[in-house]
């Protein structure tokens, strides 16, 4: 009985300890954001890597998702003669949910893995120790610029993804579903509210924070060797993805049911 309880309790305690470590890590990053020195070059480089270079993958994801969404809503709506809702549902679906969530997951795959691998490699090759001996706080130099850049870049990526996703729906609507182009666009604009877009952008910022936080945390805590860096990379992507989905539920609950 004691052994069974122990077997059950050990992973629970480990999970609680891990949550605590991540919370302390996030707190340390937040505590450093407004305190100098500020590493603007690292911030700029991170913004480019996380924001600009993620645009193709976010854009491609959005356009195919918008198109598929239009087809699905049309097929579903035709069961009760509601085909005309396609433009508005595509717009609301993209801005509130699919834009931020799919964009977040794609960025998690691309960015969390790259951050974890880069910082993990720096750890195993003693570059992080070298930073310390050169009187530079690794958290401030490596983690803060990446976390701030991801938090600021993700809403822009989400906004771009929203626009491209809606365009994907529009393209499918006018080429495959016989919608009138002007009517489709008018319908989209008429039914879309500012909060639909705003809530998605706030979600994007939260997901960007999560992605970079997980990348940095797992990179900094990477074990030795190629296997250690590989495990850190995998953990960064998995934990960022799960946390994005969990945070999405919580934020949706807060934004739309309170």
């Amino acid at each position, binding site marked *: 009985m004691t052994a069974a309880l122990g077997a059950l309790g050990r992973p629970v305690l480990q999970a609680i300890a891990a949550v605590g470590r991540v919370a302390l890590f996030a707190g340390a990053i937040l505590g450093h954001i407004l305190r100098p020195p500020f590493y603007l070059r690292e911030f700029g480089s991170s913004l480019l890597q996380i924001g600009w270079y993620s645009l193709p993958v976010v854009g491609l994801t959005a356009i195919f998702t918008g198109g598929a969404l239009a087809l699905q809503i049309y097929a579903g709506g035709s069961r009760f003669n509601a085909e005309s809702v396609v433009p508005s549902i595509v717009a609301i679906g993209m801005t509130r949910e699919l834009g931020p969530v799919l964009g977040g997951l794609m960025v998690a795959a691309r960015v969390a893995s790259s951050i974890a691998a880069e910082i993990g490699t720096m750890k195993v090759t*003693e570059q992080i120790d070298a930073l310390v*001996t050169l009187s530079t706080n690794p958290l401030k130099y490596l983690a803060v610029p990446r976390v701030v850049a991801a938090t600021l870049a993700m809403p822009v990526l989400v906004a771009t993804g929203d626009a491209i996703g809606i365009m994907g729906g529009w393209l499918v609507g006018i080429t495959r579903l016989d919608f009138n182009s002007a009517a489709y666009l008018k319908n989209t604009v008429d039914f879309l509210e500012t909060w639909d877009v705003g809530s998605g952008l706030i979600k994007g910022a939260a997901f960007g924070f999560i992605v970079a936080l997980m990348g940095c945390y797992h990179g900094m805590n990477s074990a030795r060797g190629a296997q250690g860096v590989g495990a850190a990379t995998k953990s960064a992507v998995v934990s960022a993805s799960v946390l994005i989905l969990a945070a999405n539920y919580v934020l949706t609950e807060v934004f739309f049911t309170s």
Partner: protein
Amino acid sequence: MIDLSDVHKRFGANRVLQGVNLSIASGTSMVIIGGSGTGKSVLLKCILGLVRPDTGTITLDGQDISTGDRDAFLARFGMLFQGGALFDSLRVWENVAFRLLRGQKALSKAQAREIAVEKLRRVGLKPETAELFPAELSGGMQKRVGLARAIAAEPEIIFFDEPTTGLDPIMAGVINDLIREIVVEMGATAMTITHDMSSVRAIADNVAMLHGGVIRWTGPVGEMDATSDPYVQQFIHGRADGPIESVR
């Protein structure tokens, strides 16, 4: 003067340091020898504060290293890491000038670059090397850049972690000579960890052997060959038989 008194450090069940006592006088070059996994790097990292000892005290000029201004403490040190530990994303000159470009006494980019090029020249690298990235350099060149970075801010104390590992004997000899010349020229206190006996003879004023978590023997390099300590004798002659167990 660096003083270590009864320093202990364990990682889980592995007791790496079990009461290290050692003094390194200012302006001298101490080389720590010992087999792989005996805790030489851990000892060095304890002094730098990269690893916190479980018990024991480490002082620098009489002051406990765990107290006082950390940045001021680290500013007195330069370190050459085993693999160079150069920052991949920065050019060679930016690696060398890393400390010079940061902190309260940060220099302008032009001044820092000029010093970096001068230090690169000091370690035998051409100015053109300054614009390359670390990945474009050979292992020996990376060590030289690491050495240039270690001396860029003209520190009082320089640590060398396995400076010749992975280099051919000629390049190892070049690095050993450079280290000796630079340490003498700067009047710096040096601490080197190595298995390479040619490095020991080229670099050391004093030698200490770490084995079983304690300093087994310490003394001037000139007395090393004559010591009767069986551990030292087995190590410096590279014998398989003796008190140090070897896994075969």
